[in-house]
C-alpha cells in the first residue's frame, strides 16, 4: 500500500503540465461545386472570346445547358459558326464546338445553314480529331428532321473517302456515319457501303472492327439486307481477342439467324449441309464458355431468342457425359429417372451407389464440347448470377415453344432451387411456373420441388403454390404428397393460409378423380365407425375441405362419400369463403339460404337513390328522416352485396352529406355561435368537420366515375368549403384567408373542369361564379357575404343516379396480418422498437405513393409511416399487396399491454387543402384527419413496452 501511495505521490509531483497554445478553431471548409449553367443563365456572350482557355469551359457549360430556348439558340449557333471558321483555334476547341453544334441543331432549317461550313472544315483541317468530329456532326446534321437526302449523300461520300484513313477514330466515325445513313434503295452506294463495312470487320484495330459490326447491325435494322459474308466474318470474330468485338459479332449472328434461318451452310469436311439457324445456335452455345462475363451473359440471353432451332440441337444443350476414371457414369438425374422407371431400389446403405459402370473408350470421349453440347448445363453452373439468370430466361423462352425441351429442363430447373442467390432461385421457380402447363412431373421430381415449400422466402413459396395450382399430377400418390406438403407448409408458415387455400382449390379442380380416391383418408371417414367431428376452426381441416369440395364439382361421386357434418361444414364454408368453395349440387337442406334468393340489390340501390331525388319539395323534417333511412340502408347494402359495395358506399356518403347539410343549415342561429348553447356549438362543429371529411373521402377514395358524377362530387366539395368559409367567418375570430384561398382555388378548378367536360353547373355554382366574377378583391368577409344567401337559397341537387354501379371503384384495404383478434403481446424494452409484420391487400388505390401506415398509440398520438416502395408489390390491376414490418416503439414503459391500432390510410396532405391545413394547424394541431382517408378498419395489436433493466 505504501508503495502504491508513494508511487502516486511521485507521479503527482512529477507531473508537468505543458500548456499548449490554444488551438486555432478548426475551420470548416465547405467544398462547393462549380455551378452548372442552366439554360436561363447561359448567355451567348461567354462564347465571344478567342482565348481557347476560356472558350473550352464555356463550351462545356453550353453542352450542359442544352436544350436551349429558341432565341438563344440562334445566337449561339452564330457564335459557334464563328469559332469553327477561325483558323487560329486549336483542334480541341474546334472539335468540341462541332460536338456542341451536333447537340444543338435538331431542325432541318438550322442544319442546312451550317452544313456546308461544317463540311468545309473537313477539307481544311489536318487534325484527325477534327475530321472525326466533322463526320460525326455532319452525320447527325443530315439526320435532322426531316432528312435531307442530298446532305446524306454528301456525308456518305465524305465518309467513304475517309475509310482509307489510318487513324482509328476517323475510321470509326466514318463507319458509324455510313451505317446510320445507308440508303434503303439498292444501288452502287449501298453496295459500296456494305462492302466497306464487311472489309473492315477484319481490320487490325478492334475498335474499328466493333464499329463495323455495329454499323452492319444498324443497316440491318433499317431493312438493308446485309451480305451473306457478314455471317461468316461474325463467326470468325467470335474468337476475337476483344470482348467488344465478340459482343457485336454475337448480335450479328442473332439477326442473321432471325432473317434467314433456313439457308443451308456446308459443314466443313463433309458433303452435308446444316440450317443456318442451327449453325448460329451452336455458335452461340460455344460462346457460353467465353472468358468474359459480359459476352457469356449476352450469349446466354440470345440463346432464347432463336426460335426455329432443330430438336436435335436443343436436346444437345442438356447433354453432359459424365465419366469417372474413364468409366461412364450416370448423372444424378439419370439415376433418379431410372429408379422410377425400372423400380430399382437403392439400398441407401452402400457407399458408391453411383459407382461408375462401363469402361469408356478413350477415343470416343470428347472433352471439348462441340456444337450446342451442354451449353445450358454450363450456363446454369456459371460463376456469375448474371449468366445464370440469362440462361434461365433463355430456357424459359425455349421451353414455352417446345414441350419436350421443357420436360428435359425440369431436372435442371429444380436443381437451381438450391442456388446460393435468392434472385436466381426465384427466377428458377418463376420459369418452372411458366412452363407448368407443358410438363408432367414424376413423383421424385415432385418431391424435390415440394421440398422448396419449406423455404422461408415468401415469394418462393407463393410461386410454388401457383405452380402446383397449374401443373397436372399423374398419380394418386403425387396428389397425396402434394397435399401433405402443403399442409406441412401451413403448419410451418401460417401466414400462407390464403395462398394455400387458392392453391388447393385449383388442385382439387384439376384432379377430381385422384382426389376422390383420397377423400376417405383425408377426412378420416371410416366405413363402419363414426369419427370425431373435426372443428371448423382447424386450418388444416379447412384446407382439406377446400380440396375435396372443389374436386366434388367435377366428380359428383364424391358427394355420397361425405358425412353429415362435412356437409354442414360445407354450408358454413360456403358462407364464410364463397370465392373458395363452389356451389355443389346438393339437396335443398344443405344450401345456404342466401344462394336461393334472387337478389335485387341493384334495383334496391337505384330505388333508394331515386327516393332521395324525389324529396325536393318536401318538408325539412321529412327529408332528414328519409336521408337517415336511406343512408343506413345503403350502408347495409354495401355489406350485403360485395359487387355493389363501392357504389353503395358512394351513394351512402353522398346522402350523408345531404343529411349533414340539412342538419347544419337547419340549426337555428348557426351563423351567430354566440347565441348557441355549448352543446349546440359542439354538435355544429362536429357536423361541419364530418361533412368536410365525408366530402374529402368522396372526392379522393372513389375512382372510375363518370364525368357527371365527378362533377357532382366536386361541386359538393365546393359547397362544403363554402359552408366552412361562411361558418368560420361568422363563428370564429381567426383569419379565414387560407380558407378563402382554398375555396377560390377549388371553385376555379371546378369551373375549368366543367367547361372542359362541357357540363353545366347547378344553380348554386352558377350563382357563385356570377358573384365571384363581379367581386373586385376576394377577401374572406366579402366572399362569405356572397356565399351565405346562396347556400341558403339553393338546395343541393340530389344524388345523381350512379350510371354503372358495378364500375365504381372504391379504394379499400384489408389487413390480413396481424389479425385483429390476436392475443399475442409484442413485448419490447421501452425506448427500443419492435417490428410487427404487416400483410395487407389494397384495391383500387389511385396513387400508391400516397399510401401510409397509420399507427395510433393509446395516448392518441399517431404516426404516419411511409411504407418502402419495394414492400408494395402489384398483384393485379390497381391491386397491391403490402408486405412490410411496422415498427412500434414507446419511450416509457407501460404497466400493462395496450392496444395499438394499425391502419392503412391515404395521405393526401401534399395534394390538397394545403391552405385549409394552414388554417387547421392553427386551430388544432394534432388532428390530421382532414387530409387522410381511412382504408378499412384499423387492426389492434397488443404492445407492452417494459422498463429497461438496468445493469446490463
Amino acid at each position, binding site marked *: 500500500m505504501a508503495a502504491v501511495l508513494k508511487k502516486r505521490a511521485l507521479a503527482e509531483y512529477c507531473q508537468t503540465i505543458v500548456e499548449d497554445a490554444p488551438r486555432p478553431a478548426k475551420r470548416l471548409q465547405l467544398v462547393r461545386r462549380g455551378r452548372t449553367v442552366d439554360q436561363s443563365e447561359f448567355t451567348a456572350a461567354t462564347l465571344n472570346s478567342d482565348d481557347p482557355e476560356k472558350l473550352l469551359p464555356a463550351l462545356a457549360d453550353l453542352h450542359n445547358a442544352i436544350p436551349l430556348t429558341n432565341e438563344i439558340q440562334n445566337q449561339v449557333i452564330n457564335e459557334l459558326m464563328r469559332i469553327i471558321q477561325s483558323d487560329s483555334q486549336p483542334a480541341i476547341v474546334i472539335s468540341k464546338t462541332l460536338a456542341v453544334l451536333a447537340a444543338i441543331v435538331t431542325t432541318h432549317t438550322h442544319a442546312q445553314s451550317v452544313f456546308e461550313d461544317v463540311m468545309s472544315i473537313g477539307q481544311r483541317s489536318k487534325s484527325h480529331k477534327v475530321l472525326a468530329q466533322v463526320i460525326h456532326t455532319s452525320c447527325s446534321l443530315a439526320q435532322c428532321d426531316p432528312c435531307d437526302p442530298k446532305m446524306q449523300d454528301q456525308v456518305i461520300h465524305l465518309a467513304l473517302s475517309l475509310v*482509307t484513313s*489510318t487513324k482509328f477514330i476517323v475510321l470509326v466515325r466514318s463507319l458509324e456515319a455510313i451505317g446510320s445513313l445507308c440508303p434503303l434503295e439498292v444501288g452502287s452506294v449501298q453496295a459500296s457501303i456494305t462492302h466497306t463495312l464487311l*472489309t473492315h470487320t*477484319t*481490320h*487490325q*484495330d478492334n475498335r474499328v472492327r466493333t464499329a463495323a459490326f455495329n454499323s452492319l447491325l444498324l443497316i440491318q435494322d433499317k431493312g438493308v439486307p446485309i451480305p451473306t459474308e457478314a455471317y461468316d466474318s461474325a463467326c470468325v470474330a467470335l474468337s476475337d*481477342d476483344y470482348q467488344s468485338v465478340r459482343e457485336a459479332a454475337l448480335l450479328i449472328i442473332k439477326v442473321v439467324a432471325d432473317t434467314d434461318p433456313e439457308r443451308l451452310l456446308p459443314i466443313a469436311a463433309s458433303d452435308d449441309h446444316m440450317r443456318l439457324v442451327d449453325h448460329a445456335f451452336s455458335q452461340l452455345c460455344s460462346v457460353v*464458355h467465353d*472468358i468474359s462475363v459480359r459476352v457469356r451473359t449476352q450469349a446466354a440471353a440470345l440463346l432464347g431468342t432463336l426460335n426455329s432451332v432443330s430438336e436435335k440441337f436443343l436436346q444437345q444443350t442438356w447433354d*453432359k*457425359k*459424365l*465419366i*469417372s*476414371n*474413364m468409366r461412364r*457414369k450416370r*448423372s*444424378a*438425374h439419370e439415376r433418379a429417372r431410372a429408379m422410377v422407371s425400372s423400380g430399382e431400389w437403392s439400398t*441407401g*446403405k*452402400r*457407399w*458408391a451407389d453411383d459407382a461408375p459402370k462401363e469402361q469408356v473408350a*478413350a477415343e470416343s*470421349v470428347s*472433352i*471439348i*464440347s462441340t456444337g450446342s453440347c451442354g451449353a445450358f*448445363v454450363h450456363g*446454369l*453452373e*456459371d*460463376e*456469375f*448470377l448474371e449468366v445464370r439468370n440469362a440462361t434461365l430466361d433463355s430456357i424459359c423462352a425455349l421451353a414455352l415453344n417446345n414441350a419436350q425441351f421443357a420436360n428435359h429442363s425440369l*431436372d*435442371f430447373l*429444380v*436443381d*437451381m*432451387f*438450391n*442456388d*446460393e*442467390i435468392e434472385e436466381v432461385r426465384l427466377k428458377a421457380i418463376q420459369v418452372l411456373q411458366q412452363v407448368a402447363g407443358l410438363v408432367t412431373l414424376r413423383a421424385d421430381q415432385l418431391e*424435390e420441388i415440394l*421440398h422448396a415449400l*419449406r*423455404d*422461408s*422466402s415468401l415469394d418462393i413459396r407463393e410461386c410454388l403454390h401457383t405452380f402446383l395450382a397449374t401443373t397436372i399430377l399423374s398419380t394418386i400418390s403425387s396428389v397425396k404428397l402434394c397435399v401433405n406438403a402443403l399442409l406441412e407448409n401451413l403448419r*410451418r408458415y401460417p401466414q400462407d393460409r390464403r395462398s394455400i387455400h387458392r392453391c388447393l382449390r385449383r388442385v382439387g379442380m384439376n384432379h377430381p378423380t385422384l382426389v376422390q380416391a383420397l377423400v376417405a383418408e383425408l377426412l378420416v371417414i371410416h366405413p363402419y365407425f363414426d369419427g370425431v367431428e373435426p372443428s371448423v376452426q382447424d386450418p388444416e381441416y379447412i384446407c382439406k375441405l377446400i380440396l375435396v369440395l372443389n374436386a366434388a364439382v367435377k366428380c359428383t361421386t364424391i358427394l355420397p362419400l361425405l358425412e353429415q357434418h362435412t356437409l354442414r361444414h360445407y354450408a358454413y364454408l360456403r358462407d364464410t369463403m364463397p370465392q373458395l368453395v363452389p356451389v355443389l349440387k346438393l339437396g335443398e337442406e344443405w344450401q345456404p339460404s342466401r344462394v336461393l334468393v334472387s337478389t335485387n340489390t341493384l334495383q334496391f340501390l337505384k330505388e333508394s337513390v331515386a327516393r332521395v331525388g324525389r324529396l325536393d319539395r318536401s318538408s325539412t323534417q321529412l327529408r332528414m328522416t328519409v336521408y337517415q333511412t336511406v343512408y343506413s340502408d345503403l350502408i347495409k347494402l354495401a355489406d350485403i352485396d360485395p359487387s355493389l359495395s363501392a357504389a353503395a358506399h358512394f351513394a351512402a356518403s353522398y346522402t350523408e352529406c345531404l343529411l349533414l347539410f340539412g342538419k347544419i343549415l337547419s340549426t337555428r342561429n348557426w351563423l351567430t355561435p354566440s347565441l348557441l348553447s355549448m352543446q349546440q356549438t359542439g354538435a355544429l362543429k362536429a357536423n361541419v368537420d364530418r361533412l368536410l371529411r365525408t366530402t374529402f373521402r368522396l372526392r379522393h377514395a372513389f375512382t372510375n366515375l363518370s364525368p357527371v358524377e365527378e362533377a357532382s362530387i366536386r361541386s359538393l366539395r365546393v359547397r362544403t368549403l363554402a359552408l366552412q368559409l361562411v361558418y368560420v367567418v361568422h363563428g370564429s375570430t381567426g383569419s379565414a384567408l387560407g380558407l378563402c384561398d382554398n375555396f377560390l382555388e377549388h371553385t376555379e378548378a371546378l369551373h375549368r373542369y366543367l367547361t372542359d367536360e362541357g357540363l353545366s353547373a347547378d344553380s348554386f355554382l352558377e350563382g357563385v361564379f356570377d358573384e365571384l366574377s363581379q367581386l373586385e378583391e376576394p377577401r374572406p368577409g366579402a366572399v362569405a357575404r356572397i356565399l351565405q344567401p346562396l347556400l341558403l337559397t339553393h338546395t343541393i341537387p340530389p344524388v345523381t343516379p350512379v350510371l354503372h354501379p358495378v364500375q365504381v371503384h372504391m379504394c379499400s384495404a384489408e389487413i390480413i396480418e396481424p389479425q385483429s383478434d390476436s392475443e399475442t403481446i409484442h413485448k419490447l424494452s421501452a425506448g427500443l422498437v419492435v417490428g410487427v409484420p404487416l400483410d395487407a391487400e389494397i384495391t383500387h388505390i389511385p396513387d400508391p405513393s400516397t399510401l401510409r401506415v397509420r399507427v395510433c398509440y393509446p395516448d392518441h398520438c399517431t404516426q404516419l409511416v411511409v411504407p418502402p416502395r419495394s414492400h408494395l408489390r402489384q398483384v393485379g390491376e390497381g391491386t397491391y399487396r403490402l408486405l412490410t414490418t411496422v415498427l412500434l416503439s414507446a419511450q416509457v414503459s407501460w404497466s400493462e399491454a395496450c392496444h395499438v391500432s394499425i391502419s392503412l390510410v391515404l395521405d393526401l396532405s401534399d395534394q390538397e387543402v394545403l391552405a385549409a391545413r394552414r388554417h387547421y394547424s392553427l386551430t388544432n394541431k394534432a388532428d390530421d384527419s382532414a387530409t387522410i382517408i381511412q382504408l378499412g378498419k384499423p387492426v389492434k395489436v397488443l404492445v407492452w413496452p417494459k422498463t429497461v433493466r438496468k445493469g446490463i
Partner: protein
Amino acid sequence: MPEIKVTPLGAGQDVGRSCILVTIGGKNIMLDCGMHMGYNDERRFPDFSYITEGPLTDYLDCIIISHFHLDHCGALPFMTEMVGYSGPIYMTHPTKALCPVLLEDMRKVAVERKGETNFFTSSMIKDCMKKVITVSLHETVQVDKELEIKAYYAGHVLGAAMFHIRVGAQSLVYTGDYNMTPDRHLGAAWIDKCRPDLLISESTYATTIRDSKRCRERDLLKKVHDCVERGGKVLIPVFALGRVQELCILLDTYWDRMNLKVPIYFTMGLAETANKYYRMFITWTNQKIRRTFVHRNMFDFKHVKPFDKSYMENPGPMVVFATPGMLHAGLSLAIFKKWAHNSNNMVIMPGYCVQGTVGHKILNGAKKIDFENRTSVEVNLSVEYMSFSAHADAKGIMQLIRHCEPHNVLLVHGENVKMEFLKQKIMQEFNINCYKPANGETALISVPTNMEAEVSLPLLKHTLATPTPTMTPPNPATIAPTTTTTTTTTSLTTPNTTMARSLTTTPAGGHEGVDNTHTRVKKQKVLHGVLIMKNSSLRVVGVNEAWGELGVSPHQLRFTERIEVDHGGPVPTLTSALHTVLAGKLGGAMVQAVNEYQLSVADTVCVNIHEDDPGKTILVSWTHQDEALGGKLLDIIRTTYAK
C-alpha cells in the same frame, strides 16, 4: 533454339507433393515447395541437393508458392532455414496468412505427437515467412530486370493462385491446383488470353467429368433436413481447412433459408483460427459472399456454434462438424461411437477415406465395427457419402487451355495413366505438344526464337500512310518471295556493323510485337528499310536515315538504254505517239509527258527522245529499283519501234 527446362522434383506423374524446377530464359524458378504426407523420413521433402552443388540462393532466382496446402508449401521452412535459401519467395496474401497456421499444426503433430527430431521449429517458420513477398491478383511483380510474375485467381482454396511467369519473350503459366467450377465460398479460376509458351497444369481429375454440384448439394441438404426433422443427429467428420468452411456456409445458409432452429456445432481449434482469416479475405471469395458481406459476413455463421464435449449427450437433433475427417481418432470417432447405434442418426463423409479407417469401413457398408479395446459398435445410423473436390475435371482443364491458348502443355500432379489420356486429348484437340515428365526427369520445351527489332517511327508512319500498290489486300505468301529476290543487290560492310538492305514484313499496327505467326494474320504490309545490327540490338530504319547514321554517301545505280528508232515525223509527234502507246499498255495515270522531248513513267523512269542524224533515238533510263518496269518499258518500245 532456346528451351524451357522443366524438372519436377515432386508431382511428376504423381499426386504426392508439388515441387517443380523450371529454367526459362536463363532464370531458375522453383514452383511450389511441398512435402509428401505419406512418408515420415527425409523422403517427404524434395531432394534439394539435386538442384545444384552450391548454395541454393545463388542458383534459384525465386520460389513461387501457389496455395497453402501442405503438399504445396510444406517443405518451405525446411528449404529456407535448414537447407539454406534466402532469395525471394512469392505468394498471395491469404496464403501467407494461412501457411504458417498449417505449418505450425503439422509441426506440432510431427514433433509433439510422433516425437520426431530434426524437424523445423516454430521460429524457423516465422523466419521463413519473413522472406515472403506477397503479390496481389493481376499485379505484375518485377522479380528482377527480366523476370516478371503475375498472379491469377485459381479457386481451389482461399488464396490459391495461378502464376504467369515471363522472361523476355518467353513465358509460362503455372496453375498450381485450380477449380473451374465455382463453389459455395470460392469463385472459378480465371485467366486471360496470355498465350504462354508453356502451360504447366495440374491433372488430378484427368479422366473425370463431373456432374453439376448443385444437384448433389441439394440431395445432401435434403437428407440432413429430413434427419434433423425426425429428431436425428448428424455427424460430419471433416479436416480443418477448406471443405469445412464450404460445408458450414452451405448448411448455415440453408438453415437461414429454411428457418431451422436445430443447432449446428463446430469444433474449435485450427478451424476457428482459419475462419478468422476467411473472414478477412472477402475479395478472394465468390460473388455471393462479396455481394453480401457489407450486410453480413458469410463467415460469421449465424447458426454454427462452438462445440463442447458435453453436448454429445444432449437430447434432440443437432448437426456436428468434428475432426478428424476419416473417423480414425479423436473427437469425431468418440461422437460416432456414441451415436452409431441409433438408426435415426446420420453420418456424412465429405471426402475420401484411407483403407483401414472407420470411415472407410462404414462407407463400405460394415454393420459392426470392432475397436482395439475389444469393444464394438453396431452401425445403425445411415451413412452418406458426398465428395466435395475442388480440382478442375477434364472439361475444366481443357477449358483453361482453351482460354489461355498456350503453345505447349505440361501435365503434373496426377496419375500417369490418367495423364496419358488427357495428353492424347490435348494433342488431338488443340494440335499442340503436351509433356508429362516423371519426377527427376527433365522436359525440354523448345520455343521459337523471336528477334525483337526496333523500327524507327518515321519509317513506320511512312509505310502505313502509303497505300499498298495492289488493290486487293496483299497476300503475304505471294508478295514476299517476289520482293525478296530484289533484295540482295548491294551489301556494305563496315566494322562492327552489318548493314543489309532488307524487306521485312511487319504486322500492321505493330502493337502485337513482331511475333505474328500464331496470332491472327492481319493485313500485312511490305516495309522497305535497312536492318542495322549493332551491339546486339536490332533496328530497322529508313534508307536515308541509315545513310546519315552510318556516314555513307548514297550511290544511285541507273541503267540507261538507247534505242534507235526509225521515225520520219518531228519529235513531238513521236513523243505523243509514244505517250499514247505507253498509256495504252501501262495505264494513263502512269505516263506523263514532261515536255516535248521527255516522258516520265511512274515518276521515276524517264524516257528521252533525241533527234539523231539518221533517225531518232529513244533513251530510257531507270534506277535499279525499277528494274522490272524499265525492262517492260524497253520491251514495249522495242517491239513497237524496232528497226
